[in-house]
């Protein structure tokens, strides 16, 4: 590929203006949609001049903003780095050395698909979102991706024979969707509904607000049958939404192993292509729940630099449909993963009691007294909190198992599901031993392992073991 195409500072393809315009409109709409709704609701058939002016000005402002953004955004790609200049009033210049790039993503939403452009995003250490995003023709985007990856890999072999590891059939997608976390979706659905209700309430007149209050109260006071129907409807809605989300997220999913790393391709409307170089992976993990385990389904994750601060769409998650694929992915990170481990550590039983005390009993006592005094007997429902805390920490301490060999750390954890983490000693950044006063008395400690991909904690393990592990980690990093 010829880097000379971008050797000089150049603009993105003109088609990018429409994508920038689309983004600007979406951002503006997100910011002012309650106002627009207010104008629509309050118009009452009469001419609202202020509203009309805003409706005319809005697209003009958006287009001017997009065009100026396009005009002042210039980039170039050299053998060493990617440089981006942007901004009108405050000029911004970003220089991204190619060797610092951790992963490259190509994303394409429906509007980009129509315009035949793609967004290339580069992950770098120390930033939660992609620092540089370029809009390019799809072909150019793919060329740039392979160019950057070839240059960031210190001239490795350019042979790029992709080996297909896994792809998802429609049946797999259905399985994945039906077994996903519907409770989480339910919370999202309720959250969206409540925030919608709140936004409406904020902008409506007192009269309409009263109306809403009345209808909300009516719903609350209506019959049990109505509530049960509501719960059933919400559950069904959650399942449908989960299924829809999963299908949208993972349709056309393919993962291939190349010389450079794993190439992940997915999406129908919003297409996304990611390349994860092997050496940039800090640790790997996979999780499953009771139902998914029955059908050998897992969600595998490559933890690259950025860790927990990474935005969700930049996290590299792979749905896995068999243990064989799981093994292939895990062994690409570290080849020898034993079935059984000679060195194992469990969480001390006092972890359960202490966590119960601090996260279950104490908050209940603190909250229950004023609620019981000033509210009513519904405050008694708080008793459920310690029960939930007990269940949560009991499951956690039961499942937690910290194992290690001289090459890797293997952690089994989880609460309502199971999660496995595998970390190479060499990927550790720093190690910390932390002890509360109680732990100091009982010779217990929390071992906190910091990696560039996130932090891993082994709580309430014997102090002696924590110290040995800390010293061993230092030996592995420093030798």
């Amino acid at each position, binding site marked *: 590929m010829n880097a000379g195409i971008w050797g000089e500072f150049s603009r993105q393809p003109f088609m990018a203006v429409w994508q920038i315009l689309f983004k600007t409109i979406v951002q503006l709409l997100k910011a002012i949609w309650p106002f627009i709704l207010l104008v629509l609701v309050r118009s009452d058939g009469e001419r609202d001049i202020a509203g009309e002016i805003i409706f005319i000005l809005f697209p003009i402002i958006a287009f001017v903003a997009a065009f100026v953004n396009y005009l002042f955004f210039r980039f170039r790609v050299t053998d060493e780095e990617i440089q981006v200049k942007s901004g009108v009033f405050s000029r911004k210049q970003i220089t991204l050395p190619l060797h610092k790039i951790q992963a490259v993503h190509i994303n394409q939403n429906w509007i980009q698909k129509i315009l035949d452009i793609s967004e290339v995003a580069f992950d770098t250490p*120390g930033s939660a979102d992609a620092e540089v995003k370029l809009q390019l023709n799809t072909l150019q985007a793919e060329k740039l991706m392979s160019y950057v990856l070839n240059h960031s890999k210190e001239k490795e072999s350019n042979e790029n024979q992709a080996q297909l590891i896994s792809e998802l059939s429609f049946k797999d997608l259905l399985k994945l969707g039906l077994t996903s976390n519907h409770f989480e979706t339910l919370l999202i659905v309720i959250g969206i509904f409540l925030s919608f209700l709140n936004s409406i309430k904020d902008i409506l007149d007192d009269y309409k607000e009263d109306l809403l209050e009345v209808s909300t109260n009516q719903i609350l006071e209506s019959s049990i049958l109505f509530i049960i129907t509501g719960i059933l409807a919400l559950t069904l809605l959650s399942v449908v939404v989960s299924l829809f989300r999963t299908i949208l997220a993972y349709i056309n999913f393919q993962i291939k192993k190349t010389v450079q790393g794993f190439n992940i391709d997915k999406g129908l409307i919003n297409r996304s292509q990611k390349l994860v170089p092997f050496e940039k992976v800090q640790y790997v993990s996979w999780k499953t729940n009771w139902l998914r385990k029955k059908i050998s389904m897992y969600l595998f994750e490559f933890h690259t630099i950025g860790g927990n601060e990474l935005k969700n769409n930049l996290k590299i998650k792979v749905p896995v449909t068999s243990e064989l694929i799981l093994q292939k992915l895990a062994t690409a990170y570290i080849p020898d993963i034993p079935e059984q481990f000679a060195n194992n550590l469990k969480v001390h039983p006092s972890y359960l009691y202490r966590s119960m005390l601090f996260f279950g009993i104490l908050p209940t006592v603190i909250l229950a007294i004023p609620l019981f005094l000033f509210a009513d007997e519904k405050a008694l429902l708080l008793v459920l909190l310690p029960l939930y805390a007990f269940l949560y920490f009991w499951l956690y301490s039961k499942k937690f198992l910290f194992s290690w060999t001289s090459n890797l750390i293997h952690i089994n954890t989880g609460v309502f599901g199971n999660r496995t983490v595998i970390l190479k000693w060499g990927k550790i*950044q*720093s190690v910390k031993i*932390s002890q509360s006063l109680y732990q100091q008395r009982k010779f217990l400690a929390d071992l906190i392992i910091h*990696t560039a991909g996130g*932090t891993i904690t082994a709580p309430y393990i014997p102090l002696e073991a924590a110290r040995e592990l800390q010293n*061993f980690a*230092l*030996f592995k990093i420093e030798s």
Partner: protein
Amino acid sequence: MQFSNPDIDISELPKAEESKLVLVDERYYTVVSYNQVLYWCIFFLITLIVMIVNREFHSWMIAGITLLGFAVLCFLNFRLTYLAFKNKAYAIREHDILYQTGWLRKSLHVCPYNRIQHCSVDAGVFERNLGISKLRIFTAGGNDTDIIIPGLRPEEAHSLRELIIRKNQQE
């Protein structure tokens, strides 16, 4: 080259917990105390204004309870800060840097030189007046993995920074 893979006796490895830690300079406690006095003065003024403005506080008993609570909180905060200060210590080893901190939650953080991204020396207003600086050590592991060693003499902080950079380049 002949490949060898001997067993490692973990108990024979150098022990971080046995390292001789150097306590942080006493002047750092003065800086902390200045900050606390400033903070508590502002907090006290706000409490006083609330008590004067709000009629519910115009009784000796409520005012007394509030002030007593204030004094207890203030004492606890000063005491805990002092205890935490007494536990702040660091050690420089050949391949890593150790930093111990905390009393309510005591921790020993070890960061190898070859994992350090960069480091800086800086000092606030009180620190500059008292002639001390703090050394900040950044790793790729995010904000909570950074080590900040306060209460160092500026020349000590700078030579430590130089040492870390040199070690980082060597390893």
